[in-house]
């Protein structure tokens, strides 16, 4: 045991991160500045400019149609959002919502193609599976460190850390969904002379839609769970209020902000679940 000195793994990682930071500075700067500006614009100049009553009304109407004209979800939306507004947390909610939306969108844009690639290629699946395990089991806090190194503090590193943590379910479920398509349907598709792309878009993806949507739902929930952690590196929103409560040992403030996150989580979860229907499904 004594023969091998302590391996300088930590130094290697730090060196690699430094090298990345220096080498891709132009890219990171571009993302940090332009993407950062865009996120800020989206949250402050778009979402926050919408009158609160109009926002609540629109979401409630959407909820009504999304939940197949049932009344439960719209009622919850109205009371939940009204409560957040009543607690003077509306700006924080909009910031958190922005963070979740961008992190989820990027996760899906990255995750679905990787999932497809995994499903089509055995080698890729073997290589990616441990990487995905790693991404999900590594404590999420760890991602904050390189995120700060690359993008300093603010919303952008928050989105970055969230994306790393939230992408795996989309990749996994896309892969699973495509692989679950029955052998006979793949044979039927091949027998009619489909190209790889035709098979993917006409058979595999439509058939896997339900599973992929379940993965996306997971991704969104994980992105939401990163809200508090990301606020430690300056991502604005409800998470920041929770952290403030923690620092000041102010149970009430922390709890109310936490409740806001729960309300947002429930609304997003019900929306994505209700949108997950498949044509030709027998109910």
């Amino acid at each position, binding site marked *: 045991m004594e023969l091998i000195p302590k391996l300088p793994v930590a130094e290697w990682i730090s060196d690699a991160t430094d090298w990345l930071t220096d080498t891709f500075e132009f890219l990171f700067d571009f993302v940090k500045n332009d993407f950062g500006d865009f996120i800020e614009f989206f949250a402050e100049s778009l979402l926050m400019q919408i009158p609160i009553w109009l926002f609540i009304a629109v979401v409630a109407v959407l909820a009504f149609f999304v939940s197949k004209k049932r009344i439960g979800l719209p009622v919850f939306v109205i009371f939940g959002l009204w409560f957040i507004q009543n607690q003077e947390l509306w700006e924080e909610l909009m910031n958190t919502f922005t963070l979740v939306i961008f992190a989820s969108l990027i996760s899906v844009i990255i995750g679905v193609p990787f999932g497809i690639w995994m499903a089509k290629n055995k080698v890729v699946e073997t290589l990616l599976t441990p990487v995905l395990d790693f991404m999900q089991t590594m404590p999420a806090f760890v991602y904050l460190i390189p995120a700060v190194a690359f993008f300093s503090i603010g919303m952008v590193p928050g989105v970055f850390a969230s994306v790393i943590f939230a992408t795996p379910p989309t990749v996994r479920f896309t892969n699973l969904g495509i692989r679950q398509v029955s052998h*006979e*349907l793949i*044979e*039927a598709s*091949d*027998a*009619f*002379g*489909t*190209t790889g792309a*035709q098979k993917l878009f*006409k*058979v595999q993806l*439509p*058939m896997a*839609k339900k599973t992929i949507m379940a993965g996306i739902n997971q991704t969104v929930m994980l992105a939401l769970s990163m809200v508090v952690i990301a606020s430690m590196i300056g991502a604005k929103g409800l998470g920041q209020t929770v952290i403030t409560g923690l620092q000041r040992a102010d149970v009430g403030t922390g709890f109310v902000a936490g409740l806001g996150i729960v309300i947002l989580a429930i609304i997003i979860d019900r929306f994505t679940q209700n949108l997950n229907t*498949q*044509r*030709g*499904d*027998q109910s």
Partner: protein
Amino acid sequence: MPVVQVKNLSKIFGKNSKKATRLLDEGLSKDEILKKTGNTVGVNRASFDVEEGEIFVIMGLSGSGKSTLVRLVNRLIEPTEGSVLIDGKDLATMDSKSLREVRREKLSMVFQRFGLFPHRTVLENAEFGLEVQGMDKEERKKKAQKSLELVGLGDYVNQYPGQLSGGMQQRVGLARALANDPEVLLMDEAFSALDPLIRKEMQDELLELQESMKKTILFITHDLDEALRIGDRIALMKDGRIVQIGTPEEILVNPANDYVEKFVQDVDRSKVLTAENIMKRPETVDIEKHGPRTALERMRKEGLSSIYVTDAKRRLYGYVTADDVSEATKEEVKDLKDILRTEVPKVDKTTSMHEIFNIIHDTAVPIAVMEDEKLVGIIVRGAVIAALAGNEVNINGIDS
């Protein structure tokens, strides 16, 4: 030229198939090769031709390699050896682009568990092959609709497969395959998942459709009755090998080996055998040349109680009984016409045994078997029973 020509087609599953191929050449059995190399022999040098417009049935029990064989024909499974010629072009060595074209234009497949896309409506399912070819929307809709009407589902276009019964789903499968207007239809146990009554109905419908379509059909089944019912020719498979190819009659009447014989012994022969198979050469008297005396003599010699009366061209006039004839000889009647009985039980030589049962039940005289108004044979009760028992079938009655 045959539409489909399969030559020495083999499939060996597993790694290192070369060694297994060599062992096949040495004549080792499927089990021995599995023991020696760990490879499974799916299909062992199958060769057959399918002629244009015929229904060629590949029949075997599970594990006999029949499903593998049909998948080798459209190359859903890569063959290890051998060739599959469709219109003279070898599919086995074709590049993927040409293979796609052949699958789009010449081959269609119907699957055991239907293989319908649950997220597409019945019409969209039927359109699938045409859509893949890049046909424009209106045109493919029209063709798919027509094809669905052909199988009697014209009113169900907007349903989803999950809303239909098994029989209807398979009609959609058939419509989807026919919409492409393929030269060859591959049907993999297409009716096996259906319950017996629906299965029979579908078989009848397929035969009816085939009357007008005249497609070349390669039909896979494990059900011998089905094979005998719809097949123009049947290939029997065992352990990946084709053991016999022939018409239903040839297989029943002339089994190539013990396996086939054992296989066919439980068949309901009454559905397959025809009058021709069980008739005997008739004893007759000539209405112009012979009188009652000759008739009596012949009957006595052969131990008959009646005899058919024809003319020189074997046109049937009727029969005379032994009693009538002996009476006639006593009363010095000279002409057979005076004692002729004309109520003759007649069947065509292609009549199935099934129908013969009813006739033979009601008649005291042997049944006359006819071809173009001529007497070609007679059927006695004993022959029917013997044929059902599976022996003493008179294959000399077959003209070939």
